[in-house]
C-alpha cells in the first residue's frame, strides 16, 4: 500500500485490475484503492507477471503492506499478452489463465456466438455485417450455403436464409411498438393496464463515493445540533470588483468570509466529542460538484493569507484537479470551514449539512436582481434594482449560538456591501 499523502495511514483495496497470471507494465494501473476520502489508482511499480494477490478486495491494510507479488524475471520468457488472450504454457499459471474472462463484445449474449469462426467448414472468413446479422437472428452459419468467393457467406445469403427460415430469435427491436403511429388511441385498449405491470429497471449498488457521502452526511445530522440562519446581501460592490479583477464572485465573497472567520474564530472551529478546537488559520473547504458521481470538498490551506486573485487561482486549480480525479488525500483534509456554492443553477435557499468536525458551513445561492429599498445620504428612501444573494449558515448549536451565527453573517454582509477592490 503506497504512501499517498502525509496523513494517509491505511487504504482499502476496491478493485484489482490485474489477476494472477496477467502481464502488467510498469506504471500501468494494477489496482484501485480508497483512503478515507479519495479513491485512487495504484500504478504497478515494475513490469512483470502478477503471481499472487495478497490483499483481497474490501480489505483495509496499513501503508507499506505488500498488496501483490509481481514476477519481474518472467519478462524474457513470454512476451506481454493481453489479459484475455489464450493461455501460454507458463508453468504454474496456466490454470488461472484458462479461467480468465473472454473478451465480450458489447451487446453480445453470454451463450457461445454462432458466428465463431473457428469450426467453420466454409474455410472463408466472415464479414462484419454477416457476423452481426447472424448474431442478431441467432442463425447457425453452418446451415447456410455461401455463394460468395470460395463459398463465403455473403450478406445476401444470410438475408435470404433469415427470410426463408426465420431466425432462432427475433432481431433486436422486433415486437416493440412502432415509435410513431397515427393516433395513440386504440379502441379496446384498457387504459394503463394495457402496458402491463410496471417492471422497474434493475437496481445497482451505490458507488463508493455516494456511500461515503451518505454516511458522512447522515452522521453529521445525527450528531450535530444543526440550525440554519440566512442573511440577504447586496452584491453591487462585489459585482464591480468582480468585473475589475476578471474573476468570479466566489473568491471575493470567500475573502469576506475569511476575514469574518478571523474575527469570529469560534465559527472556524472543530468539535470532536467534547474537545473544542479554535483555529487561527483558515483552511477553507470548497464543495466541487462532480456531476452524477457526487461531490468532493478540496481545501484551500492558509486561506487567510491569500488575495482574491490568489484564492481564485487556488479554487480553480483544486476544482480542475477534482474533476480530473487528481486530488491527493492531503488536498481534502484539515478543513476548518466550508463554503458550498450551488447558486449557479438559480436556487434561492438551502440548509447545508455541516461537514464534521467543523461547526459551520456557508451556502451561497444565486445572485438575483431585486427591487430593494435603499436610503440615500439625506435619509430619503428609494426603490433600487440591486443584485442580491441569500447566504445561509448552518451551524452546530453544540458549539455556538444563534446570536454568534447572526453576528458572523452580519459581518460578512458588511464586508461584502462595503467591498473595495
Amino acid at each position: 500500500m503506497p504512501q499517498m499523502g502525509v496523513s494517509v495511514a491505511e487504504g482499502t483495496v476496491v478493485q484489482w485490475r490485474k489477476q494472477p497470471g496477467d502481464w502488467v507494465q510498469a506504471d500501468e494501473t494494477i489496482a484501485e484503492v480508497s483512503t478515507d476520502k479519495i479513491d485512487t489508482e495504484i500504478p504497478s511499480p515494475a513490469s512483470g507477471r502478477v503471481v499472487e494477490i495478497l490483499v483481497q478486495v474490501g480489505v483495509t491494510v496499513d501503508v507499506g503492506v505488500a498488496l501483490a507479488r509481481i514476477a519481474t524475471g518472467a519478462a524474457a520468457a513470454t512476451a506481454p499478452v493481453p489479459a484475455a488472450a489464450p493461455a501460454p504454457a507458463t508453468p504454474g499459471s496456466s490454470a488461472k489463465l484458462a479461467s480468465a474472462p473472454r473478451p465480450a463484445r458489447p451487446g453480445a449474449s453470454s451463450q457461445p456466438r454462432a458466428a465463431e469462426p473457428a469450426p467453420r467448414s466454409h474455410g472463408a472468413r466472415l464479414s462484419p455485417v454477416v457476423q452481426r446479422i447472424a448474431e442478431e437472428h441467432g442463425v447457425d452459419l453452418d446451415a447456410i450455403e455461401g455463394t460468395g468467393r470460395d463459398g463465403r457467406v455473403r450478406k445476401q445469403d444470410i438475408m435470404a436464409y433469415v427470410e426463408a427460415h426465420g431466425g432462432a430469435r427475433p432481431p433486436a427491436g422486433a415486437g416493440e411498438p412502432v415509435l410513431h403511429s397515427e393516433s395513440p388511441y386504440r379502441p379496446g385498449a384498457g387504459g394503463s393496464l394495457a402496458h402491463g405491470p410496471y417492471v422497474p429497471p434493475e437496481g445497482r449498488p451505490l458507488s463508493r463515493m455516494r456511500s461515503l457521502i451518505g454516511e458522512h452526511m447522515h452522521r453529521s445530522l445525527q450528531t450535530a445540533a444543526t440550525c440554519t440562519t440566512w442573511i440577504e446581501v447586496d452584491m453591487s460592490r462585489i459585482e464591480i470588483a468582480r468585473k475589475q479583477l476578471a474573476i468570479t464572485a466566489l473568491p471575493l465573497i470567500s475573502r469576506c468570509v475569511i476575514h469574518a472567520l478571523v474575527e469570529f474564530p469560534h465559527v472556524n472551529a472543530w468539535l470532536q466529542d467534547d474537545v473544542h478546537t479554535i483555529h487561527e488559520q483558515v483552511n477553507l473547504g470548497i464543495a466541487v460538484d462532480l456531476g452524477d458521481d457526487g461531490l468532493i470538498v478540496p481545501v484551500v490551506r492558509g486561506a487567510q493569507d491569500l488575495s482574491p486573485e490568489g484564492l481564485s487561482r487556488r479554487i480553480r486549480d483544486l476544482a480542475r484537479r477534482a474533476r480530473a480525479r487528481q486530488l491527493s488525500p492531503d488536498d481534502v483534509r484539515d478543513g476548518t470551514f466550508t463554503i458550498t456554492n450551488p447558486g449557479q443553477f438559480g436556487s434561492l435557499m438551502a440548509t447545508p449539512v455541516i461537514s464534521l468536525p467543523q461547526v459551520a458551513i456557508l451556502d451561497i445561492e444565486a445572485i438575483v436582481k431585486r427591487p430593494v429599498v435603499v436610503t440615500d445620504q439625506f435619509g430619503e428612501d428609494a426603490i433600487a434594482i440591486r443584485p442580491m444573494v441569500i447566504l445561509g449558515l448552518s451551524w452546530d448549536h453544540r458549539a455556538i449560538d444563534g446570536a454568534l451565527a447572526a453576528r458572523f453573517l452580519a459581518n460578512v454582509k458588511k464586508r461584502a456591501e462595503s467591498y473595495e477592490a
Partner: protein
Amino acid sequence: MTEMTYLRAISDGLRTEMRSDERVLLMGEDIGVFGGAFKVTDGFFDEFGASRVMDTPLAESAIIGTAIGAAVVGMRPVCEMQFADFVACGFDQLVNTAAKMYYRQDLPVNITVRLPSGGGFSGGPFHSQNPESWFMHAPGVKVVAPSTAEDAKGLIIASMRDPNPVVYMEHKHLYRRVKGEVPEGSYETPFRARVAREGEDLVVIAYGAMVHTALEATADLAGASVMVLDLRSLKPLDEEAILGAVRHCSKVVIVDEANETCAAGAQVAALIAEHAFEDLDGPVVRVATPDCPIPFSPPLEAAVLPSVDRVREACRQLIEY
C-alpha cells in the same frame, strides 16, 4: 427549365448572382474582353464592365490576395484560376490567409475560387490535375465539386453566398460533354451528397467527372443493383449520406480521379472503416489515379485515369466477393 451545358450552367449561376448582388465581382486572367480561357465569362465584360469583371496579371497569389482584401471590406469576389493546376501559386493566400482569417480575426472571407480541373483531353501534367484534397486538408476552406449542369449552377451560387472561402472544382472534361435541364433564376444546391442512382447490392461513391464514369460502368452489371452516390461537397463531407449508403448496400467502391494517396476517397474510406465496420460485407475498394503525373500521351493518360472498364471490373469483383 432550360437545357444547357455544364459550362453554360456555371456562367448562368455567375450572371444570375451578379445581377442580383452588386457585391459580386470576378477576377482572373483573360476573363474580361477575352471571356476566359474556356469562355465561362463570355459576354460578362460587356454587361458588367471592367470594374466587376477584372482582368488580372498572371499572378495567382495577387488574384486571391486582392480578393481576400475585397471580401474583408464587404465584397463577394469570385476568382478564376485559368487551370486548377495554377492555384499552387496562390496556395499561401488561400490556405494561410483566407482560411484562417475568421479564426484569427473574426473576419469572414467570402471568396469563391473556381478551379477548372481534371484530365482526359491530353493536357499533360500541368493542365490536368485534381488538387481538391490539398484544400480539404486546410481547416477553414470548403470544397465542392458538381457533376451535373443543375448542380454546377446551384453550387456556384451557394459558394458565392457561403461566408467561408469556397474552392469550386469545375471539371473541364464535363464543360461541354454534360448537358442537363437547369432551373431558371436563382437557387442554391446544398453542400450535401446526392443519390445519382438508387441500388441495393453495392454503392459507388464518386464526385465530379467520376460520377459519370461510375454510372456508365454500373449501368449493366449482370443484373446487379448498384447505387451511385455523388458527393457534391468534399469539405464538409456528407457523412450521414455516406454511412447511410454503406449501411444499405454493405459493399462500397470509391472512385477518385485524383492521385490515390490522401485523395478525397481516402477520407471517405477511413470514415467508413471507423463508423460502418459492422455493416461491411467486403473490403472497402478504391479506384483512383496512381501516384504519377498525368501523361500527355493519350494512351498513357487513358491507362492511368480511372476508366469505365476499371471501375466496372472493381465492382464486378466486389459483388462476387
